[in-house]
């Protein structure tokens, strides 16, 4: 195997990873004249954290929970309620204190739900978590005195004086963006640490075959509950930080409707639910796409036609904006179709296979080696074999 190819395979993931990180870090500076897109970026990061933490529970550990947004909201509401100055259970705490408490509560409830779900499989688990999420949402909506009801709860926003300078340079939403970026990176780090530890193996073993895993000594109870607790705490952290951010400052119960949960699930599934990074990238990409698709820019030549047919378009729920076609709900329809098609034909997601190709060059080499050895060929020929295989793949 040529050393050039070897170097390429070994360092490609690193280079791409660094490039990706740099893009995330410097994004606001590129968009400093359109604060809207920085705001979108912060939202995208929020969804990326939710999608990847859901992937941890559902993709890695096989527990298809629909309670993820419920934990997101729970931590946020707890933090908001105890953090406010006046009201029931108000303790006037700074977000730096109330957020960890909110996250801790989410973790405890995650522990409880995880425990309750131990005997539930797949469809029953999905149904039970849906019930839990809906009950929580309805209670939040009903208890107006405590939560502000359907109109939502106002939260203290935090000041980050050291990030104030950024507002001038990068955009009004830069502080919010960077806060979310930090949470995103921290969450990914935590999840990767977990996934690369023995628990990563246990998560997947339990997903593959719980009984067989137990027969091999894997403490399935601990593993399943751990997955729930970690994913619920990360969802809670994302929610609490996001909603306390300057620029948001409020949470409404309808943010956790099943529809939002499906959005997160759809992002994770389209990205690749068995790969944290794929789910995160899927979420980022899809969120940006959905925002961009709100108004599809149209060449100047076509604008008159659009304006002429405006009434007809509006009858179908579309619209005409300043630069192009307003898609409104129809972009979500396209998203729904994408979800169903991906599920049918690319079960592992669209981004996951790409990531796997990048990351597993070394493993592929060994597999090829192994197959060659099995065929009884002389190892000296293996190099030739591997090169041939790759040439064939390139031609596909």
């Amino acid at each position, binding site marked *: 195997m040529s050393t050039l190819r070897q170097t390429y395979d070994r360092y490609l993931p690193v280079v791409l990873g660094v490039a990706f990180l740099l893009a995330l870090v410097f994004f606001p500076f590129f968009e400093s004249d359109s604060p809207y897109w920085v705001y979108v970026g912060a939202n995208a990061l929020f969804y990326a954290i939710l999608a990847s933490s859901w992937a941890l529970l559902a993709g890695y550990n096989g527990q298809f929970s629909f309670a993820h947004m419920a934990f997101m909201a729970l931590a946020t509401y707890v933090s908001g309620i105890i953090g406010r100055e006046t009201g029931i259970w108000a303790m006037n705490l700074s977000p730096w204190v109330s957020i960890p408490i909110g996250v801790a509560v989410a973790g405890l409830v995650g522990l409880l739900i995880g425990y309750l779900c131990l005997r539930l499989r797949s469809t029953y688990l999905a149904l039970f978590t849906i019930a839990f999420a809906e009950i929580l949402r309805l209670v939040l909506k009903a208890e107006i005195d405590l939560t502000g009801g359907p109109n939502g709860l106002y939260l203290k926003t935090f000041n980050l004086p050291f990030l104030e300078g950024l507002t001038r340079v990068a955009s009004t939403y830069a502080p919010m963006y960077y806060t979310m970026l930090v949470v995103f990176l921290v969450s990914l780090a935590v999840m990767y640490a977990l996934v690369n530890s023995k628990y990563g*193996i*246990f998560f*997947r073993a339990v997903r593959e075959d719980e009984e067989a895993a*137990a027969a*091999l*000594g894997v403490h399935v109870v601990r593993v399943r509950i751990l997955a729930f607790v970690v994913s619920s705490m990360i969802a809670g952290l994302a929610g609490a930080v996001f909603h306390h951010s300057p620029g948001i400052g409020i949470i409404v119960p309808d943010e956790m409707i099943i529809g939002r949960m499906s959005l997160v699930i759809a992002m994770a599934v389209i990205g690749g639910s068995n790969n944290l990074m794929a789910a995160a990238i899927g979420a980022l990409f899809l969120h940006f796409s959905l925002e961009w698709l709100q108004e599809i820019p149209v060449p100047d030549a076509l604008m008159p036609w659009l304006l002429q047919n405006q009434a007809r378009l509006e009858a179908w729920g579309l619209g005409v904006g300043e630069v192009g076609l307003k898609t409104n709900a129809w972009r979500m329809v396209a998203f729904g179709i994408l979800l169903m098609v991906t599920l049918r034909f690319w079960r592992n997601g669209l981004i996951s296979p790409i990531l796997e190709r990048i990351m597993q060059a070394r493993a592929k080499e060994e597999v090829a080696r192994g197959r060659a050895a099995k065929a009884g060929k002389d190892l000296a020929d293996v190099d030739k074999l591997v090169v041939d295989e790759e040439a064939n793949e390139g031609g596909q």
Partner: protein
Amino acid sequence: MRLELKNVVKQFGGLTAVNGVSFTIEGSQLVGLIGPNGAGKSTLTNLISGILKPTSGEIWFNGERIDGKPPYYIAAKGIGRTFQVTRAFRRMTVLENLLTPGLAKFGNRKSRAQLEEEAMEILRFLTMDHLRWEYASNLSGGQQKLLELGRLLMMDPDLIILDEPFAGVHPKLQRTIYDYIKRVKERGKAIILISHDMESIFTLSERLIVLNFGTLIADGPPEEVKENPEVIEAYLGKDEEEDQFLPTAA
């Protein structure tokens, strides 16, 4: 190593799958567990390994009562088992399959590198070391069986229950499994071997336990059990095709 069953009974509704079975296995015996289909062998295995809880009776292992404990607890105590239908972790690599029990038992004491080294050694013994990056789903049936056996070695149990290890395996692989069983015995482990392959059972076992309709009808050295009229009736009464079941050359 001491496994003791005291009057173990398992009922499913009206059906009594295991009917007051008692026996003790000590040291490093290789015990064959045989009986016609439906005799209760798999149920008994599930009872010992903790997947099922006895309706009544006790199961003791190394001085501790284990009936009713969860399977992972029992596995951690030193009982390992295979399944009739192989249950490899399909979307994990061969190496990861092996690491699972290793990490479960020794994760706190041994490093990952150490465990990988042990896994590779086992793979070499099973002549599967070139497959370590393959996903288990890409393996052939026979290789998956070997993988399951390899996983058992990684958890270093005191007692191994092999549920039909030779089923559907071609002769070359059978040889490897034979070697595996011999090697495991050499390491001082006890083995309970469930099989319909009478030749293998009779060659390997030092002791035979025979079940019929959930009841233990014979327990002793193979030569004795072979002559036991109840045993003969249990088999011959059921299945004409199995008239070759007892090897003629004793």
